[in-house]
């Protein structure tokens, strides 16, 4: 089975986000970079499927030249090769991003490497646009399931399981080729090994530079939300606080079910 995983380079913001003076972007001078936890799981899932049933895996990103780091990281875990759609650092909106990804997939597939399964992480960590994989699937005419937390690969089909809105689980059996977005929890991603990192250095990265496009959604400025820092009222210390806590729960109306 040939699998493509799409990831996005994002700053590892950790505690507090700091913006540049003009609010045009996050101040990344002191930050490392990563991909979202959902995407780490998508990479791990691709590697596991290929380990179990053969085939090959490719990781793709649209981003600046430095996004090579995230591609190498994925290859250190076991992805076979990478595609970098290099940008000049400008923001690409979801329509334009999906357009460039679709174009790259079509070119890859025309060259003989059809992808049975295309994996994404469920929404990017930074912009949270929640749509690139759906646009990609729609453009390619492939079925697409969102928010998947378990994947079973069968013969020419997969079963994708996700949480149902009211609790419990719902599954979709869909024919391949297909597009799936996965969520953290589908697996526990491994750390790259030292030999894995060494191998990743030698793996191939195919590069191209698609032209920037506007897709109808355009950032004006970023702002930090008004912080509502409250000073918590300390109602007690240790076990002696219990009566005060129960009084509080009664006052808040949650003591009697």
């Amino acid at each position, binding site marked *: 089975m040939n699998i493509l995983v799409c990831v996005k380079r994002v700053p590892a*913001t950790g*505690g*507090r*986000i700091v913006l540049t003076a003009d609010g045009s972007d996050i101040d990344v001078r002191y930050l490392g970079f990563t991909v*979202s*936890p959902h995407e780490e799981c998508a990479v791990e899932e691709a590697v596991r499927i290929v380990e179990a049933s053969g085939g090959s895996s490719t990781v793709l990103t649209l981003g600046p030249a430095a996004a090579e780091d995230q591609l190498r990281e994925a290859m250190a875990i076991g992805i076979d090769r990478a595609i970098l759609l290099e940008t000049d650092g400008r923001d690409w909106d*979801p*329509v334009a991003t*999906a357009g460039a990804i679709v174009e790259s997939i079509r070119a890859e597939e025309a060259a003989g490497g059809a992808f049975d399964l295309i994996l994404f992480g469920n929404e990017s960590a*930074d*912009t*949270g*646009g*929640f*749509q690139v994989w*759906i*646009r990609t699937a*729609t*453009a390619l005419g492939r*079925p697409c*399931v*969102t*928010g998947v*937390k378990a994947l079973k690969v069968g013969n020419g089909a997969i*079963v994708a399981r996700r949480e149902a809105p*009211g*609790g*419990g689980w*719902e*599954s*979709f059996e869909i024919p391949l080729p297909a597009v799936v977005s996965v969520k953290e*929890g589908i697996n*526990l991603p491994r750390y790259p090994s030292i030999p894995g990192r060494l191998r990743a250095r030698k793996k191939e990265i195919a590069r191209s530079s698609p032209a920037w496009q506007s*897709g*109808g*959604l*355009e*950032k*004006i400025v*970023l702002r930090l*939300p008004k912080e*509502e*820092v*409250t000073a*918590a*009222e*300390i109602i*007690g*210390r*240790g*076990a*002696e*606080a*219990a*009566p005060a*806590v*129960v009084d*509080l729960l009664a006052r*808040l109306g949650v003591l009697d*079910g």
Partner: protein
Amino acid sequence: MSGPILALVSISGGAPERASLEALTLARRLAADTGSALEALLVADPAAARAAAGAVAGFGVAAALAVENPSLTADHPDGWAEAVVQAISARQAAAVVGPGTERGNDLLARVAARMSLPMAANCLAVEPGERYRITRQRWAGSLLEDCWLDAPVRLITVAPNSIAIGAPDGSPGPPIVAVAVELSDRDLALHVTSREPAERGGISLADAKVVVGGGRGVGSGEGFADLEELAGLLGGAVGGSRVVTSAGWRPHADQIGQTGLRIAPDVYIACGISGAIQHIVGCKAAKHILAINTDPDAPIMGVADYAVIGDLHTVVPAISAEIRQRRLAGG
């Protein structure tokens, strides 16, 4: 187009879901600002939609649209997308506002892809104009983005737990308008093929009025017994931070945070949780937060309303014992 503003209202258990009422509230404001009519498209099986139409009364809805197609059920993601596409066309809608839940975002993204239109997800505010100026969440709400949405039909989802739902104003229930949609086999090909019940019974984390959350301070999977006991006494549910689910102390479905669930209970009791931003974005919509922590300077104290300083394994059992004792005394 200068047609109506269409609000997507998901019906579950006969009533509109909370996030859909938030979307309806924002859509109503947008309709007023643009001088447009407000229409609610009920996302539910047709029978349930007709029964629930009254539930959108009092929100200024001029018409409740019920999709009519014999094959369409709630289990057809592409079928619903096509139904919304056809409803947009039938009503000549100027904008569509849906809930920014996982399902709501999924549905509107499918609509956007089919219509080759941009979509703005997880929005908080909309200023209409030739282009719409929109405020939306990035980083699960740790950061806000102001952006332009430039499209003939504006597709917008509303970030859950971010908008105060307007009180119904006593206006009568809207008339139900049937919207006949035609779906191909291709539209109906993707559907839920099997279901499984939740592993555990009891109240779900998403719906619980009281949530007891545990973090690194709980120390182990077994350590959650104290939290389970308190949650049981309060009729609530137990959740955990990302540390807890990554360590395997709790199943991943119990994670509260950016990559897990975002909850909005009446009371959230955060036990041994330091308050990393990834967790805070998942619990800050709680009406009241009580933190139980050994560290009075933990970041969680900055969002908590109340705090008990102490070891959760001492404090939580003492609270449970106090509740039991009062219940016995109260007969």
